């Protein structure tokens, strides 16, 4: 196929270049038109495949979804939504080999838009899957301070809550505490949000923080049964049994079906009734409680020794068993009960209760968690220890 342009114009360099420029511009315009038409078709095809992929994800057919998203991305390679969704699906497909690819897609997106909160959140989740606290924290923070397409405050709090849950799961208490403080300061005036925060504080064993969040909820919604139960339980864990009793009683009244609050209330009542160190009780009442506690301790010790096959009166017990020693201490403390009425013996209640607490703690360690009055005595001992510290 030999072809030749007709020599319509003189072969002068400027004219040739002018003709070539015109040809290039025309070619560019023609190819632009072609490419834009092609891209429009591809984008339409991409949308169809994307919808198909979403349907596959909804039915947990991850392999099909990934294939559809890949094809959609081939059709529209610059669509960040497809890329992000493909990366999320690869991440969520429970195939560890796909985590690298998900990260690669997300890093590519991140390089193009490092401020995109959704991308940072997705990267944070990949890092969380890998168990990398440092990377996950960095990307979660990027997500919190990044740009959200809608509802930025709620999304930021959600990201922070996810970070806290991750940190708590990884036992990273110190950074979790910092995030909880920041979360508490940024929460909207919503009972649900504060209740969730209270739950996180409780998970982090920050009972004071949890109680404060429940009280915020009760200020917003005074009859909130969940908040009442939460406040009661938190106060109980915190060791403030008077407050716990108040909240738990209100919770049980507000929701009679709440068996947990009811059980805790019973336990709280028992603690308050058994505690010889409670203020506003008479000396006689204190002495009665000490007497009852010592008697209960003996019962607990005897039962535990039977359970552990230890003869409290024999010398042939295993040397490691502390129960005979406790029996001896109990026997020494028993006669002191008579001296309780003497005003000179001010240290005696503490000394007797110390024997009771040791018996309760040791039997709990040897024979498992106690019930009813023994449990109450154990909790009183723990509160007493905390107060002393």
């Amino acid at each position: 196929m030999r072809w030749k342009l007709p020599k319509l114009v003189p072969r002068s360099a400027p004219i040739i270049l002018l003709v070539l420029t015109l040809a290039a511009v025309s070619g560019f315009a023609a190819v632009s038109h072609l490419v834009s038409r092609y891209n429009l078709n591809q984008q339409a095809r991409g949308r169809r495949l994307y919808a198909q992929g979403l349907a596959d994800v909804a039915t947990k057919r991850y392999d099909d979804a990934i294939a559809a998203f890949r094809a959609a991305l081939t059709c529209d390679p610059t669509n960040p939504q497809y890329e992000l969704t493909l990366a999320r699906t690869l991440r969520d497909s429970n195939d560890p080999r796909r985590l690298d690819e998900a990260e690669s897609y997300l890093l590519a997106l991140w390089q193009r838009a490092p401020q995109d909160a959704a991308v940072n959140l997705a990267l944070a989740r990949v890092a969380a899957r890998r168990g990398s606290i440092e990377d996950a924290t960095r990307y979660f923070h990027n997500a919190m301070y990044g740009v959200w397409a809608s509802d930025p405050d709620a999304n930021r709090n959600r990201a922070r809550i996810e970070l806290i849950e991750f940190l708590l799961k990884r036992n990273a208490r110190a950074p979790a505490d910092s995030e909880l403080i920041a979360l508490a300061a940024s929460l909207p005036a919503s009972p649900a949000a504060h209740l969730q925060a209270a739950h996180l504080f409780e998970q982090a064993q920050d009972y004071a923080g949890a109680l404060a969040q429940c009280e915020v909820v009760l200020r917003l919604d005074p009859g909130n049964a969940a908040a009442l139960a939460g406040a009661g339980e938190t106060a109980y864990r915190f060791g403030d049994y008077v407050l716990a009793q108040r909240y738990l009683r209100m919770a049980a009244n507000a929701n009679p079906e709440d068996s947990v609050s009811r059980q805790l209330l019973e336990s709280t009542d028992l603690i308050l009734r058994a505690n010889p160190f409670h203020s506003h009780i008479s000396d006689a009442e204190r002495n009665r409680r000490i007497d009852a506690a010592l008697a209960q301790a003996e019962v607990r010790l005897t039962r535990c020794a039977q359970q552990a096959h230890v003869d409290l009166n024999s010398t042939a017990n295993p040397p490691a068993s502390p129960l005979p020693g406790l029996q001896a201490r109990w026997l020494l403390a028993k006669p002191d009960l008579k001296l309780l009425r003497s005003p000179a013996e001010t240290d005696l209640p503490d000394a007797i209760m110390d024997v009771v607490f040791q018996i309760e703690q040791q039997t709990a360690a040897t024979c498992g968690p106690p019930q009813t009055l023994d449990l109450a005595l154990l909790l009183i001992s723990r509160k007493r220890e905390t107060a002393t510290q």
Partner: protein
Amino acid sequence: MSNRAPIVNPSSSSSTQTVARVRASRRLFSKLDGVFNEEVFFLILCVFIGIFSGLAVVCFRLAIDWTHLALLGPLPETHSWRLFAIPSLAGIVVAILVLHVFPGIRGSGVNQTKSALYIFNGFIPFRTAIGKFICAGLAIGSGQSLGPEDPSLQIGASIASALGRQLEISREKLRLMAPVGAAAGLAAAFNAPISAVLFVIEEVIGRWSAGILGSVVLSAVASVVIVRSFLGSEPLFRIPITAFKRPSELLAYAVLGIVGGLASVAFAKAVGYLRPILKGLPRWTQYFQPALAGLLIGLIAFLGFPQIMGAGYGSMDEAMHGQYEWKVLAILAVLKIIATTFSFVSGTPGGMFAPTLFIGAMLGGAVGDIERILFPQLTGSTGTYVLVGMGVLFAGFLRVPMTSVFMVLEVSGNYEIVVPVIVANTFSYLISRSLQPIPIFDMLTRQDGLILPSLEEDREETILRVEDAMLPVPDTILSAQDYVDANFHRVQDSADSTFLVRMHPSGWNIATREQLQRFYREGKGELTLASVLPVQSLPSLYPDLSLDSALRYVNDYSLIPVVNRADSRRLEGVVSRDSVFQKYGSERAIEVPGNA
């Protein structure tokens, strides 16, 4: 009745303005004409070649994508009848087109461009571009195991050649047009201008000069700019995080180089063995060869490996991100060698660049994974081994060591892996060279009955230098500052007939015994030799120059001084016509033992 419009007499002022405008325009063009000498014009032309090639490659890629979507659908399907039917039917159509409409498009675009440069004075028919566009687009789009890079290269070369012929540029420039267009086409196809420039210089043109490099670079850059403006600047693959941490891991990459070298040899030998056999079969079988290749590929895809269809960039991307186990990677490498060999030897138009990268990627991933199973302390990711593997096959199979390194670097954009790439590529190249002395492109050319310069052989050829033919410094060297008497007496004890004369302050001349005797007889003994010798500038040579450079002078001068590069007055030796010819003669005797 006349329909002619009445003749309007233009007003005299507008007529004057028009004439003035035309004259001004002519003056401008005549001035511009002076600005454009041939070199400048050629360089500007290279930019246009890049633009046109880029536009053509964009269309070519769209055509492949569109064909693939139309014939095979957007989603990969296994166990579908289309996997068999489409490549087979498309193969028959392609065979008919190749045999009846575009007979010149069989074979490698690289070799056709080299042929244009060395044999056909830069001529590549434009029909080739059209044929490659249609047939390669249909073949690759229907799933034949071939790549779009070689056809893109040839489309670029074809466009450049046609443009050069149209513009009637000089023969010397016209020869260069095809490689310039080839660089543009390849750069556009790979979205990698440096590798394309290096490939064309390394494999097609074979020599470096500022003019050649400038023209090739301009066209490659222009085409890449065009492609990126339409198709975006995203690389062919999403590159994972790659790193090279411990030097001891180079051993692992060396092993990859060795395995890659062996795979390259197997691939090249399979192509070299099967191609002449299939070409030698009766002509009617050629209608079915591409279809049978398509059927084989369809069968492989049907059995669960559709990744081998087409260029396979998507699968390379997945391999790079650890989506396949080492067994699957190894199987894919072997199957791709088989599929590409049959696609190529059946005469289906398409290139082997992408399949080479595919095989290398899969092999690299497989070797890397096995090595990491055996030695868990290795830190290189699968992606790193996949990338290095691509370079390994490029170096071993296509035998372009420089391009193979830059290809990986340019595609990955990561210079951390340059050392593993160089080490692995070197092993692969050396193994391939020792087990398969003839590179694949040269082998294909020779099978087609053409003898083109083998650039690898050129690179390896021993060059004769001036020092190889150099004679010792003569005992008698005359001085131009001395009198003729003194010089005449100095030559009396010498047996030579020609003497070097050291000029002042620098330079050399020659005096013969007869000349000195004549000057002496003519009573010029009291004159300096410089004043009586005819003025001539005797060239001097350096010992490291090619002996060919001495050939230019040996007929004109009986003795040529060889001087030191640092001090041109220091004589290292001399060469004469006899010494040069004797050296060439002895080399010829070594090359052809029968003559000894």
